[in-house]
């Protein structure tokens, strides 16, 4: 009996010594301050919707600011992206901060708002995921971009250029300065292609669109196509024909005009490359003078190698002021959705949930006036786009999203 008592006493002592309490995971009070940045002034920071999205968890919360532009969240430890977006007096206001560490009560973050004028041309739809053949192989020749004139005025498309960012969403942004800010020039890779014209040759009427295809064929029925493809691009306005510079490896669809090549890092590629994983964002821009085409890319001042890389490959550098519209495409995976674009170009992100799914991203319809579709454009693709849509090249919705 005594020995039993001694044994039990000894073990109670061990319990007390070893059973130290570790911190239990809980939600922390996090303060967010929204403010205008140094370059712009304004008022009216009340009732703005601030969105908190977990990078490594599934949390997605929205809270409204008070009159001082402040709001509070209760969030468990983790990495979060905070964003705010609104339109006022014809200007888009966006603020976005990403990968903010929340670990204790009282963590505070500030979102600086950027201001940008609402533009006329917008990406209406981007079908980048591609599809699969009946044999299960991947098929990306049916990718397309659709560009829409979101205004009531004619816009000329001469020199309109499309390019994919070199920076991949799966990695942290390498194109940053010593202050950790994204460089004011955007690095483009693969084929950067443009619409040929002398300045006023190619007009786009109000509230109409053009389709730019990788290959301008009916992919469902053409012998070179894919019966599983969701699109007929035989009526595309342009296609990205690469046969002139890759030894004729690309198809040249009859009756579909070809884009011109401004710059390339992959002359030998079989076709125009758009990442089917959504790993590289897309921009459209115009150079200042039509005479800048087609030699602007040959000027070494307009090129750069990747910072911190030993590779000698040079990429085309486009000042962000030239950008007309952009979409921050990212991968669907947690941790592979790093920001590549400036917040005043695109403060959000959008993605399809899987590659080769035959699905696209499409801009939301904000309103329909006299039968004319006006698409939502807040320069925030998180808010402006729907994902996993059935592609509808050349077709516009008849109801508001």
């Amino acid at each position, binding site marked *: 009996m005594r020995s039993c008592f001694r044994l*039990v006493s000894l073990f109670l002592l061990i*319990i007390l010594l070893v059973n130290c309490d*570790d*911190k*239990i995971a809980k939600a922390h009070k996090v303060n967010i301050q929204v403010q205008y940045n140094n370059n712009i002034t304004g008022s009216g920071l009340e009732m703005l919707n601030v969105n908190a999205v977990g990078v490594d968890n599934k949390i997605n919360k929205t809270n409204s600011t008070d009159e001082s532009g402040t709001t509070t969240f209760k969030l468990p430890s983790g990495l979060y992206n905070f964003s705010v977006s609104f339109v006022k007096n014809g200007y888009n206001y966006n603020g976005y901060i990403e990968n903010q*560490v929340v670990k*204790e009560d009282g963590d505070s973050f500030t979102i600086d708002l950027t201001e940008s004028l609402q533009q006329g041309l917008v990406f209406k739809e981007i079908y980048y995921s591609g599809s699969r053949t009946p044999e299960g192989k991947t098929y990306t020749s049916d990718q397309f971009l659709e560009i829409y004139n979101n205004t009531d005025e004619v816009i000329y498309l001469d020199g309109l250029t499309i390019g994919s960012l070199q920076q991949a969403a799966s990695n*942290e942004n390498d194109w940053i300065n010593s202050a950790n800010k994204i460089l004011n020039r955007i690095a483009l890779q693969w084929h950067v292609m443009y619409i040929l014209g002398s300045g006023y040759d190619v007009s786009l009427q109000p509230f109409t669109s053009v389709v730019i295809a990788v290959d301008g064929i009916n992919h469902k029925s053409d012998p070179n196509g894919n019966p599983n493809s969701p699109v007929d691009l035989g009526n595309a306005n342009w296609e990205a024909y690469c046969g002139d510079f890759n030894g004729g490896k690309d198809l040249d669809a009859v009756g579909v005009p070809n884009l011109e090549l401004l710059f390339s890092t992959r002359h030998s590629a079989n076709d125009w490359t758009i990442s089917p994983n959504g790993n590289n964002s897309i921009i459209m821009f115009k150079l200042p003078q039509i005479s800048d085409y087609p030699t602007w890319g040959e000027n070494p001042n307009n090129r750069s190698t990747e910072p*911190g890389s030993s590779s000698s490959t040079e990429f085309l550098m486009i000042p962000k002021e030239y950008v007309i519209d952009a979409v921050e495409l990212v991968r669907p*995976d947690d941790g592979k959705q790093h920001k590549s674009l400036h917040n005043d170009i695109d403060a959000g992100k959008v993605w399809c949930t899987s590659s080769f799914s035959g699905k696209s991203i499409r801009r939301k319809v904000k309103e329909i006036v006299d039968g004319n579709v006006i698409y939502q454009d807040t320069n925030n693709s998180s808010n402006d786009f729907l994902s996993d849509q059935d592609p509808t090249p050349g077709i516009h919705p008849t109801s508001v999203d």
Partner: protein
Amino acid sequence: MLNSCTKLTSRIVIITLCFTLQCIGFYTNAQSKDTLKHYTSLNYSIEYADIWLQSNQPAAISYQPFNKLATINAGFLQADNLFKSVFHPTSQTQYNLSSSGYTKLNQLNLWGKAQYKNTKQSEQKWNNTTFISEANPFIHGDSIGGDYQQDFYLLEARMAYRSASKKYDWGLGLNYTVSDKTNQSDPRPLIKSLRFKLEPGLIIHQQKWDYGISLKYERLSETTETTRNDKSENHALFRFIGMGLHKKETLGTGYPEDIMTYNGYKKGISIQSKYKGLDFENLSIASYEKTYERAAQGSVGQLLTGDYHNHKYNFTNILLIKKEQLIHNIKLNISHNHIKGIWFYQKEIPQSQSYNFEIYDKAVRHKRKITQIESSYDFIIEENNLPHLQVESGIKLTFDKTEVFPESYYNQVNNIQFSSNINKYLYFGGINLKMNLAATYRFNLSKRIYIEDIELKEQITYPEYYYSSADFLQFKIGITTDLLCLAADKYMPYASLYTQQLFVTENSNNHNHNYSIGIGILF
């Protein structure tokens, strides 16, 4: 349910009787086998020779009743389980081969065992681990799973030395287990596991009192490499946190593989005291064991995916009374597991050619407490130092509560389990038989669960809750026989046949069938 059990029992009895009847004809001409050990009563002879042999004290093999002993055994097991954890396979087919031996050299006692098992585990999902602790919530797996093939190897040895003065015994136990497990469906894991255990022990003898102490140190190492033959598809891998909560990773097109590692240890101490009375012995054992397992993803710049801590406290008291031809063995066991799962909040830090992860916070995300109180009473009738009838009955209470944070989800299950086990030994003519009948009934006393939004609640959370709380009835029937007709002076062949059936009482379609066959030779 009862009809099928009766039929099965009848078949087992008939098969064994037919086989042993063949032997009776030979027995009258065979030599006397009285000097041979009997396999049918071997476990009994060892367990009740001395109360120390009912403990894990390494020095206890000094009390083995035989000078020399060896067995070679081959076995087959078929298990089909509809009532199971979602992390376990639906069926298992296993072939096993083992050999063990014991010898006494003056004051030195040596025991060794080698075992090989080849197991096919069918329809297993969500779990690509092998050797980690059953209660570790930080397991990983995929939703496709498949049929796994496992090769398992075990080497175990114990030695004990009795001092010339017989005042102390010291002992050392070594255990080395290795396993390879894989499945051939994308995403296909290759799981390599290793456990190594070292246990020194000491027993000090006084007049009526013995005092013992033993230590335990065990290392775990497990690596799972997940590859795909078809990299054009995305595959989802799940890192679980507990109660079905998880972090999902996508093994995307172009990404070649995923690597998960587990490293850990167990450290324990056990203190024993034994009192020997006129016709009884009492052994008290108090032990503490700490288990630690770290899960991590990647081979370079690892992402930590959870630290598992388990502090286990155990108290056992065994009272063994031997009076004339009767043995009473009364056991009480109380154990408490205090489990914590610590999650790490990490930020990716890109480095040249690779990534590293910086920990900016850590907190307990999983907590579990399991308390068990178990009591059993074993009653044995002997004749001529051989067992004839053994009846055991037991009761076990389990209190099990799991919580996950910061969501504050929880489940709590309290069960009571009754068990009864009867062994009847028959020695007549050329037959030694041990017939075994056992029954277990688990009844849920209370249960409750609180969750809101868990993505895998229908696939993981609720099925696991059901598995831990459903009432069930389990029967086990078996026969072991010494094949005296085939015996010679130096060896005794034996065979055993067992079946175990489990039925969930509220759903009789939810049942498990297990069958095992073994043959061997006792030297």
